[in-house]
């Protein structure tokens, strides 16, 4: 019996086979098969084929590889990794279904490498193996690049800059931690302000950049909205959730995170109001929802950690669904900008309703999966009696419903119009089925999961690390949230004219960085290059002069002497023979280098001896 098979490694290596499969049908079947192989391995793990998984926080340790003085652990299997891996693979299967229509096979390769490396990071048992994260920072770059637009090119570079920066921070933190403790175990780390915690602060910084926590959230909305329609869906799921996973492992209960998360949950919504691009709006909702998870990690009680995990997992599912809905419109209508859309309902009703399932889920409607996870985090905030955190998180629920449940569907599919604008209408068939069927199937599975988990939360709760004694459907909670939503709708209806899309771009917290970068490039291109050009010219002049003199030093000195004399004469303006002098000088310059003076053997030897003498003098006196 094999000790264990790493699903991440299987998918990671399997990804490289995709481009070699010649027949398209077989290739696509293989693409669907990859996550299924992963799921099969997970089922074997759950059934105890590779050994019984102990109760939390115990873990199975597999694939331990000696490396230098340390032992790397590629497979740490406990309840938390299992539940993350399950959702990753189920979501990836639906995403692959959605992406079947993609012509570029390298996009599939990039996506599967991304999935494989995410699983690698999830199963990592030590801080070195965790650097699967680094693969996760470049694999999605291709998903952005394959969009092929100029904006996408820039966005991908910004993506990789952010993530390599965060990777460098984490690495620095790991090295400092290793230096002080000698341990590379991926476990709960101490945290505090001050110099002795520098390493941990660096690691925390790295993780909160990866998880798009305010004020480092801007890379997410900037890049996800520029990726290919199906590529962006993979991106919504893995990077930020893996970062949340790392935060749960390393920094649970850090109060700073609680505040950052709660502020982020609301702050992103303000920016979402101004957003005109459907996918950017969804991106701000990812940021806002991550706020719940980060706040949950920060609260750090058992219920909050359970809430953060379950919310991360539910979020993967409903957010992929939301992005798929917006992606459908992008694929079918060619744009996801609100001011160019509206009235699409008649032509793509199924994707509208599937999107709405995601919209209800993210808002936290009872019987949808957002509700069962979100209320857990909110309840955890209530139980620690922290009113500001509670109000921020509850307020974010209002804003989420406002945007994803109302603003986005209203602006994309409805806007009170029966027909879309003529240029969009020209791209649509006359049927109600404009969206490719494989996309709808992918969305349907996710929509089913949203409702299934919402109706039967036990399926998720039983797999969470800490035991759950939490009943989401109480009269209080269902009633309060429904009343809140009814009145949110009323507020939206009053102000619906204000939330229509305008073709604008909303500045975000990356403005100082991008402006500083721009100024740096300007400084390099203008003053610095100007200085370099001047320096270059001057140095070349000197070099040319030396070359010129060395051709015939005797004649050259003669010419230079005459030039100086001429200059002196001109200044004194005594004689009328200047013209004569100038003419003879011109003549000499033209003839230059002329005939070289021949040296006799004796003169040569004297010169050589003289240079030796100089060298001797140098050796004796100049070098101490």
């Amino acid at each position, binding site marked *: 019996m094999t000790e264990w098979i790493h699903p991440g490694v299987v998918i990671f290596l399997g990804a490289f086979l995709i481009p070699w499969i010649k027949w398209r049908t077989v290739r696509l079947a293989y693409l669907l098969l990859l996550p299924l192989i992963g799921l099969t391995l997970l089922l074997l793990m759950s059934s105890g084929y590779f050994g019984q998984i102990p109760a939390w926080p115990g873990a199975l340790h597999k694939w331990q590889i000696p490396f230098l003085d340390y032992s790397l652990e590629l497979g740490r299997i406990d309840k938390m990794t299992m539940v993350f891996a399950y959702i990753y693979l189920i979501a990836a299967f639906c995403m692959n279904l959605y992406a079947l229509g993609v012509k570029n096979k390298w996009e599939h390769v990039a996506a599967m490498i991304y999935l494989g490396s995410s699983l690698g990071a999830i199963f990592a048992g030590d801080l070195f193996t965790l650097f699967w994260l680094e693969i996760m920072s470049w694999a999605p770059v291709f998903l952005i690049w394959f969009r092929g637009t100029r904006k996408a090119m820039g966005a991908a570079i910004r993506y990789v800059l952010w993530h390599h920066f965060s990777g460098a921070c984490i690495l620095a933190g790991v090295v400092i931690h290793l230096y002080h403790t000698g341990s590379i175990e991926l476990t709960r780390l101490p945290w505090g302000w001050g110099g002795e915690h520098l390493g941990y602060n660096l690691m925390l910084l790295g993780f909160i950049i990866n998880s798009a926590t305010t004020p480092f959230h801007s890379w997410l909305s900037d890049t996800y909205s520029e990726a290919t329609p199906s590529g962006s869906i993979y991106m919504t799921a893995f990077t930020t959730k893996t970062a949340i996973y790392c935060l749960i492992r390393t920094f649970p209960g850090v109060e700073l995170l609680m505040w950052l998360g709660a502020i982020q949950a609301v702050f992103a919504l*303000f920016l979402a109001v101004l957003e005109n691009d459907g996918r950017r709006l969804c991106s701000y909702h990812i940021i806002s929802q991550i706020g719940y998870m980060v706040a949950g990690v920060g609260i750090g009680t058992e219920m909050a950690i359970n809430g953060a995990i379950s919310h991360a997992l539910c979020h993967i599912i409903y957010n992929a669904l939301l992005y798929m809905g917006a992606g459908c419109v992008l694929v079918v209508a060619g744009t996801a900008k609100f001011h160019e859309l509206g009235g699409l309902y008649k032509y793509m009703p199924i994707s509208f309703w599937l999107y709405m399932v995601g919209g209800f889920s993210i808002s936290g409607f009872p019987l949808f999966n957002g509700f069962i996870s979100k209320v857990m985090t909110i309840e955890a905030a209530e139980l620690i009696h922290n*009113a500001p955190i509670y109000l921020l998180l509850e307020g974010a629920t209002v804003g989420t419903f406002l945007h994803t449940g109302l603003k986005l569907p209203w602006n994309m599919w409805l806007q009170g119009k029966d027909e879309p604008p003529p240029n969009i209408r020209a791209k649509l068939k006359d049927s109600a089925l404009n969206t490719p069927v494989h996309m709808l199937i992918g969305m349907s599975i996710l929509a089913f999961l949203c409702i299934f988990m919402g109706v039967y939360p036990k399926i998720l709760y039983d797999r969470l690390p800490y035991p759950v004694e939490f009943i989401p459907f109480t009269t209080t909670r269902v009633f309060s949230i*429904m009343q809140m939503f009814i*009145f949110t709708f009323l507020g939206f209806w009053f*102000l619906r004219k204000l939330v229509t899309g305008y073709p604008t771009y909303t500045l975000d917290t990356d403005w100082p960085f991008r402006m500083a970068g721009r100024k740096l490039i300007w400084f390099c291109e203008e003053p610095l290059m100007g200085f370099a050009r001047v320096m270059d010219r001057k140095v070349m002049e000197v070099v040319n002069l030396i070359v010129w003199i060395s051709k015939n030093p005797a004649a050259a000195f003669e010419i230079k002497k005459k030039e100086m004399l001429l200059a002196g004469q001109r200044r004194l303006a005594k004689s009328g023979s200047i013209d004569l002098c100038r003419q003879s000088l011109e003549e000499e310059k033209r003839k230059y280098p002329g005939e070289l003076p021949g040296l006799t053997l004796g003169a040569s030897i004297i010169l050589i001896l003289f240079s030796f003498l100089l060298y001797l003098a140098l050796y004796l006196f100049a070098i101490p």
Partner: protein
Amino acid sequence: MMSFLRQYPKRFFWVSFFIGLVVSLILDVLWLRSDILHYHFPFQYVPQFFAIFGLLGCMLLILIAKGMGYFISKDEDYYEKDSRRQV
């Protein structure tokens, strides 16, 4: 009812919406007097707290964001224009 829904989907929506609205207001009054609702903070027991919170929260969110937009909403090609590299 199904035929009504099919014939007048908008009217059906609005009728059910306002029924829901009124019912929620009444239930809040009734249930707050009884012992059905269990909240954690005293301010949640304010009558119609969640109605006010939803309505005001939503409207404030939109209005404040629109005010912010005065400063941070720029042209779509804000980062592209006057950059020679276009990246």
